[in-house]
């Protein structure tokens, strides 16, 4: 479906994820975060950047991967993105919703 985020026309999946990462901007990420009730800080952006790099490198995202990331630990991940951290952070990052069960 089409939507307007931060003044840009974007295509979203049924779950509200960007269909095409090339449409992503930081402003769009900020707006998606707001919808999840998250005020973005520098720390949030560091994590988002790491997630985007992982997806670009074709590494599957999982909570175990967060533990091994060296970027942040699981507790901080839940604190930064409460209410389903992987689901929410990937949405803000403009990457597909992870399919992993772990």
């Amino acid at each position, binding site marked *: 479906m089409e939507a307007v985020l931060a003044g840009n026309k974007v295509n979203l999946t049924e*779950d509200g994820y960007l269909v095409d990462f090339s449409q992503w901007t930081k402003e769009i990420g900020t707006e998606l975060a707001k919808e999840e009730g998250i005020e973005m800080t520098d720390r949030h952006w560091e994590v988002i950047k790491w997630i985007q790099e992982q997806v670009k490198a074709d590494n599957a995202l999982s909570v175990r991967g967060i533990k091994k990331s060296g970027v942040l630990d699981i507790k901080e991940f839940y604190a930064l993105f409460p209410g389903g951290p992987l689901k929410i952070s990937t949405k803000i990052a403009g990457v597909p919703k992870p399919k992993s069960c*772990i």
Partner: protein
Amino acid sequence: MAKTVIKKMLFVLSKATLENAYAAFIMANGARMEGIEAEIFFTFFGLEAIQTKKLNKLSVATVGNPAMHIPTMVGGLPGMEGFATKMMKKEMEKLDMPPVDEFLEILSASGVKLWACKLAVDMFHLSEKDLIEDLDGILTIGDFYNRADQEGTQLLFI
């Protein structure tokens, strides 16, 4: 997407086979990943999964498990359990599933509450020093029911 009406999942893990422990762990972790609260109550043989000395030695049940597709008598032969367990762990590693000790750390860091059943702890003559550091406490079943303190709580016996 519609929001789930489940707000909290309470699991009772009563068995110590690898497949049952992982069922509880994966479901508890999956709940947290969806923003659902999760707690696990380890009782009877399930306590093996949180005993420091035993938790990394859990095995797959090869006897009385038709899905193993081997005759029960073969499943009972020495070494079969170890072999089946090794095979399964290998497959799980391929899927990036953590071993039991690491999984418990992940669950605890994710905010899953881990409880030991008082009656079972007494019955097996255990004390807190035998159990993992991440344990949140030893509860009676009554205490555990009281953890179901909100609408949308589900309780699952594994």
